[in-house]
């Protein structure tokens, strides 16, 4: 070794990189397909782009987008996530009453299709006796008032509005979501090492504190990514609100404009563009949430970055 001169020892690597001829073929094929697609979009009369953009700016459409789609999604997810976490904690509790209540709730709401659920909820105002026992907020007060005097008609009307209106949508979609979120939250809680709860108990924390301070923050790392999926699915499921019937909602407004003006297809395109936009915004939110709850795990830049880097790294190998 020592006899060799510096020139003989291997130096900086300057190698020919692996060639990827197939990749270039794929790029060419895709470029042609994209060109064909763009050609169709811009030359086919059926698209009627000016109509698309005009439809997207109509006040009822924007109100439907904001109220029926964005707001209901956000509120239903709030109900769904908090309900789901509570259900998951109940499911995992040693108390058999709590865990079976949670099981039955999950079983019921996972079994009923959302369109069916919403349509049924819309009818609850009329069949008020049974409907209110689901565990709806202010259900009890309404019931007790119902049995009392003749002001009942007023309240029945109220109930009707509640169930058929935007709150009906939030409650119906939120409870249904809670059933799915319960499973996600349960998986998240169970993903946290037992030793964490033991360490927390060993410094004298109560069960509640252990859950709140130690277990749930770590479970969030597992809970957030599927919750992003659920949120995006919820955006799309708000189009089922018409079952209530709630017409103050994006897709219904656009499709009714479409049928009124005999421009059905451009109206659908307008709806798709809106759904793409909302979903993209929620995806950005998800990215930041994942970063926030990835603190202390893996590289400091956050779990989401790591995953992207890994994906990119893998695609380079092919």
């Amino acid at each position, binding site marked *: 070794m020592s006899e060799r001169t510096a020139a003989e020892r291997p130096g900086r690597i300057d190698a020919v990189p692996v060639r990827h001829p197939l990749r270039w073929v794929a790029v060419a094929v895709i470029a042609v397909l994209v060109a064909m697609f763009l050609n169709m979009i811009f030359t086919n009369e059926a698209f009627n782009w000016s109509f698309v953009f005009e439809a997207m700016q109509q006040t009822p459409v924007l109100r439907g987008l904001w109220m029926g789609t964005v707001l209901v999604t956000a509120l239903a997810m709030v109900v769904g996530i908090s309900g789901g976490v509570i259900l998951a904690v109940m499911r995992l509790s040693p108390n058999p009453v709590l865990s079976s209540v949670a099981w039955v709730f999950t079983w019921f709401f996972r079994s009923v299709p959302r369109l069916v659920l919403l349509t049924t909820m819309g009818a609850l105002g009329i069949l008020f006796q049974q409907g209110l026992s689901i565990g709806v907020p202010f259900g009890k007060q309404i019931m007790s008032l119902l049995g009392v005097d003749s002001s009942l008609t007023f309240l029945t009307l109220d109930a009707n509005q509640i169930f058929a209106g935007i709150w009906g949508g939030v409650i119906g979609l939120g409870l249904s979501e809670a059933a799915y979120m319960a499973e996600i939250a349960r998986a998240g809680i169970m993903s946290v090492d037992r030793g964490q709860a*033991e360490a927390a*108990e060993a*410094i004298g924390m109560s069960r509640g504190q252990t859950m709140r301070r130690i277990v749930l*923050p770590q479970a969030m790392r597992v809970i957030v990514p599927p919750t992003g999926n659920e949120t995006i699915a919820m955006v799309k499921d708000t189009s089922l609100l018409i079952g209530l019937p709630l017409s103050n909602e994006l897709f219904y407004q656009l499709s009714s404009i479409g049928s009124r003006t005999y421009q059905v297809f451009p109206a659908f395109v307008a709806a798709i563009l809106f759904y793409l936009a909302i979903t993209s915004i929620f995806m950005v939110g998800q990215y930041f949430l994942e970063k926030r709850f990835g603190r202390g*795990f893996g590289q400091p830049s956050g779990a989401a970055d790591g995953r992207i880097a890994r994906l990119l790294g893998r695609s380079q190998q092919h």
Partner: protein
Amino acid sequence: MSTTAEPTEPTPPTPSSQLTSQTSPSARADSDHRRLVHAVNVTKAFHGTEVLKGIDMDVHKGEVVCLLGPSGSGKTTFLRCINQLETIDGGRIWVDDNLMGYVDKGGRLHRLHDKEIAAQRRDIGMVFQRFNLFPHMTALQNVMEGPVQVKGANKGQAKARAKELLDRVGLGDKHGAYPAQLSGGQQQRVAIARALAMDPKLMLFDEPTSALDPELVGEVLDVMKELAKAGMTMIVVTHEMSFARDVADRVVFMDAGVVVEEGPPSQCIDAPQHERTRRFLQRMRQDPKSV
């Protein structure tokens, strides 16, 4: 350390048939002021298999007891029973004259509520084999968590105290590090600081160095030696014979759920009386990883 104000609780009864059938009469009629841990005839079974078969153990204030024994002999289980991460099936455990997990009402034991059990645990620090630091918190936050959340301590004071403790275990420059950014030895020292932050009367160590690379064992043992020197009462499950020999006041050798032999390290390690102890120590000497 002094207990001049001995709690005026009634003398606990002898273990009744409720928990165990075998009892030693007058389990602790004499209230020994120097005694911190008093375990009598502790039994524990998992799914019908008895893992602890009547353990008696006393630990005095300021004493360091090393618990030795082959794998599966029940050392971890016994430690976990002391701070009630496991419930015992029979016998009694007192820590600082508090009966762990139960209250005696007219001769009948009543199980304590979770909250009361949590309160009993505050005075007992535990250090785990696998550290179990909270990964979403920095070293400083890990140490502050107990005082702030459990004792309701003022945040500023808890922070100052936590810094002091981290300095004491030699991690003055790692306050802001997350556990994943620390070596095993550093993590274990944070875990010790976290336990100390609750001002425990008793520290339990369950093989605190056996998950560490050999070159990191020393730094953790040094912290434990300091702690022992400062007068902390400690029960240490370990396979580190030199630590046991140098630091322990007493060594307890367990096998198959019973205490086989106990005494000062000079006797128990260097001149064991029992065949089982001898065999275990022999194997330890040949291959410390085999046990």
